[in-house]
């Protein structure tokens, strides 16, 4: 789901950065308002490392393969830290492995980071139930990650389909993009189930690690 350098026109890359700045600012603003940010930095660092490595875990979905994203998990566990964490993870992926790109860092941050922030709010929506239980944590954990991947794929598809360069056969490229998007449907369930499991597990052993407030 990482868009590499040279795929998008310069204007779209610039728009990606332009959209990333206010979201990063909003996240940092909320982090500062939430008390001492240093308390959550170890947790954010660990999950940044998990996000960084997760893109190398591929799941074969014939005729292609998809890799783990974990943006829903980061949203559920990190809250407002999720967007900066993903931004840092994407930067390292682009610099170290050319996975993604520096010109498309902003666009990729929107593709994967914005849904992570949204998944935090989806998970927090579980607070409308007075009784906190494993079922609620599991259901909203699943929904958060499920929607995060779904939204990421939707943004990815829209960005690519509206920016197919001249020379390439549009219908062939569209078909390839739709195939890749469909291949992410199993990933929505896999990451949803995994995040639900983590949410229930953390609620049992260390509820403070879950950002529900």
């Amino acid at each position: 789901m990482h868009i590499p350098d040279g795929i998008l026109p310069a204007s779209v890359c610039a728009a990606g950065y332009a959209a990333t700045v206010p979201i990063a600012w909003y996240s940092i603003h909320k982090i500062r308002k939430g008390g001492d940010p240093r308390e959550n930095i170890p947790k954010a660092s660990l999950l940044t490392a998990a996000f960084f490595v997760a893109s190398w875990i591929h799941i074969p979905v014939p005729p292609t393969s998809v890799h783990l994203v974990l943006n829903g998990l980061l949203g559920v566990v990190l809250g407002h830290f999720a967007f900066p964490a993903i931004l840092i993870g994407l930067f390292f992926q682009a610099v170290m492995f050319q996975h993604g790109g520096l010109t498309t860092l902003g666009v990729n941050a929107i593709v994967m980071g914005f849904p992570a922030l949204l998944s935090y709010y989806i998970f927090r929506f579980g607070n409308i139930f007075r009784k906190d239980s494993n079922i609620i944590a599991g259901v909203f954990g699943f929904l958060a990650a499920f929607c995060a991947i779904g939204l990421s794929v939707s943004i990815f598809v829209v960005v690519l389909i509206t920016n197919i360069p001249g020379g390439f056969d549009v219908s062939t490229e569209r078909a390839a993009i739709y195939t890749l998007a469909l291949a992410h449907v199993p990933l929505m369930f896999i990451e949803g189930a995994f995040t639900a499991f983590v949410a229930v597990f953390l609620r049992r052993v260390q509820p403070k690690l879950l950002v529900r407030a």
Partner: protein
Amino acid sequence: MGRKWKLVICITSLLIILGLPTEVHAHGVVIKYTSDIEIEIVATYDTGEPMDGAQVLVYAPDDPSTPWLTGVCDDKGHFTFTPDTSKPGIWDVKIRQAGHGGIIHIPVGEDAVATGSSGGGYSGLQIVLMAACVTWGIIGTALYLSSRKTARKRA
């Protein structure tokens, strides 16, 4: 024929033989050669998976905006073409599939090189080592900050 004429014929023949050029022309032979450079592109994802069915655009040096050739990679991610050697310079090959792809610059002519790559070309071990270094750096930072916080609380 008198002896005198026989002697003249022998001397003349000898002179003709000795006077022949050293270059010998037998049957007419025309030997030509044309230098056809076939370039094979191999496109794979960084996982090693071939870019089966990826679209390929080839641009000649004299017109970098209009594709000189278009095509599709086969099921092994291979695409072969023969550039026009009358157009020396850098040939660009763009490959794309579902938003993934890249561009490779291939010199044709005097500066031609046998092989080239556009990717990072890291081995599996290098990737694991780099991932381990970055992960350890991030986790180490987390542990360092965590230990400082604990030390402050104890103090």
